């Protein structure tokens, strides 16, 4: 890593780690939610940005993870830490089926199948009242400490660090993945799937794998959200959220992992600022989204790295 980039990372890391010391509680709540949504958006980037698998139903992952985690915390004595990871894992396993089904189709049909699947879960969450609580959802989800300690995680600050650790862990996992031989195949599928198949790759299996990993991480984000908010409701499975997370990825900069995290934070910030100012905040955010698509399709992260590189052009360029 180059010197300038590394120092930026160190500063960002320090700010995030030290944030609980300086920020008031409501800001910490926002920041925690931004971190959770950042993980959610990053998980979608694996599919959308790296494999060009456009999911219109990524809320399925988030909602499923949230309900699974909420159910485990409410109905078993499972401690928070285990419930969160178990829910993420469950989502990933469930997504093998989703991936298997959705990859029967490609392109827009793939997207429609992901949407259909999310809507299916949405309908189930309404009807299966004994498990999901129906339209009330699951309320009063505890942050069970459990026999092994980890008491610190159930506090507001502790939970923030848990979410942050999941985001950083997720990022390290994803960035290793996209740089690996497996990731090279994903890029091949993104650019020319027919050719990738002709080269001898079983592209469908790769796609199912990336859907499972992506949903698993999205489920982990949802699993963090349930004990964070204390509830899980049907909105977490609604198509609106699927659309919003796509917007976060695009505005932040797809195919970069970091970009979608920034996009999620930007989305939260805008929602917060604009909604304080007008009821029709979504309208204005829509305009911002259109502006990004038209004038900065590389997103926030693309703009930022573009500026950094422009600065670097003055000096003799080191090999990338």
């Amino acid at each position, binding site marked *: 890593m180059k010197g300038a980039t590394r120092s930026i990372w160190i500063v960002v890391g320090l700010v995030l780690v030290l944030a609980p010391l300086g920020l008031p509680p409501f800001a910490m709540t926002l920041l925690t939610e931004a971190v959770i949504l950042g993980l959610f958006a990053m998980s979608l980037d694996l599919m959308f940005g790296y494999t060009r698998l456009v999911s219109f139903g990524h809320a399925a992952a988030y909602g499923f993870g949230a309900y699974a985690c909420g159910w485990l915390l409410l109905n078993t004595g499972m401690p928070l830490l285990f419930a969160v990871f178990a829910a993420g894992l469950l989502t990933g396993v469930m997504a093998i089926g989703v991936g298997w089904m959705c990859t029967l189709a490609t392109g827009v049909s793939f997207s429609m199948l992901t949407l259909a699947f999310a809507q299916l879960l949405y309908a189930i969450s309404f009807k299966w009242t004994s498990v999901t609580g129906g339209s009330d959802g699951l309320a009063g989800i505890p942050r069970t400490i459990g026999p092994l300690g980890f008491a610190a995680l159930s506090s507001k600050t502790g939970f923030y660090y848990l979410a942050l650790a999941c985001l950083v862990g997720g990022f390290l996992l994803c960035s*290793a*993945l996209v*740089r*690996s*031989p*497996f*990731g*090279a*195949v994903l*890029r*091949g599928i993104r*650019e*020319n799937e*027919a*050719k*990738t*198949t*002709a*080269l*001898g*790759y*079983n*592209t469908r299996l790769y796609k199912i794998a990336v859907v499972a990993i992506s949903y698993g991480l999205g489920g982990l984000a949802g699993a963090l959200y349930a004990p964070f908010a204390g509830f899980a409701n049907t909105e977490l499975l609604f198509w609106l959220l699927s659309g919003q997370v796509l917007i976060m990825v695009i505005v932040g900069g797809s195919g970069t992992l970091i970009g979608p995290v920034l996009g999620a934070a930007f989305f939260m910030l805008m929602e917060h600022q604009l909604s304080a100012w007008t009821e029709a905040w979504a309208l204005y955010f829509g305009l911002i989204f259109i502006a990004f698509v038209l004038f900065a399709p590389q997103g926030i992260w693309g703009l930022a790295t573009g500026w950094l590189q422009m600065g670097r052009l003055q000096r003799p360029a080191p090999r990338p």
Partner: protein
Amino acid sequence: MPLLELDGVTRRYGALVALDQVAMKVEDGEVRAVIGPNGAGKTTLFNVITGTVKPTAGTIRFAGQPIAGLPSHQVCRLGLSRTFQITSLFPEMSARQNAELAAQARHPGRWRPFGGARIFKEARQRADAALDQLGLTGIADRPAGLLSHGDQRLLEVAMAMAQQPRVLLLDEPTQGLSVEETGQAVDTLARFLQASRMTVLLVEHDMEVVFRLAHRITVLHRGTVIADGAPEQVKADQRVQDAYLGGLD
């Protein structure tokens, strides 16, 4: 034993018979061209051999092993690498990355979800060797989408070669090239074929290209083989001349 052997291969699309009882043998080290007028079934033949399309009937053996009906990625992994009639590349990757991804497909560690430095290194070596064979070393770092059409056609061949195949299937390697580009590409291909002694199955429209590259020619017309033999023999064949002049109805 022939390296590639087709017997009674038939492919129907409804009432249309695209391939009708095609039989042919390709020996190890041979450069075989399949020619025929438009719609003769040449590309269907390729698609059937490579598993893109399943044959309706018939057997295909590769090194004695039946491969008819296997999915294309499995056929490819056995050692049959193909190029496409319409250029198919990864346009945003460099020429070298294109060849590396092709080489990686043969590596048992291609699934590895982390690390992989050794796999990349091996792929890189094979890719560089293949690019060198086709004289593309100089443009290895350029994005494939920005190469000249001629270089793109050769890059496809290099990608197939990076897989170290036993049979190379070339679907109209000079398709869409200008006369001048065709000349250069054929020079490079001829040099490469002579040096590598690859077994090649070649579909080609351009007769000059065929006569320069092929050891033996199979002529398809309306899905059936109407001639098979050395270039001079085929050239003199009355049925072939009729087929190309639009007769034989």
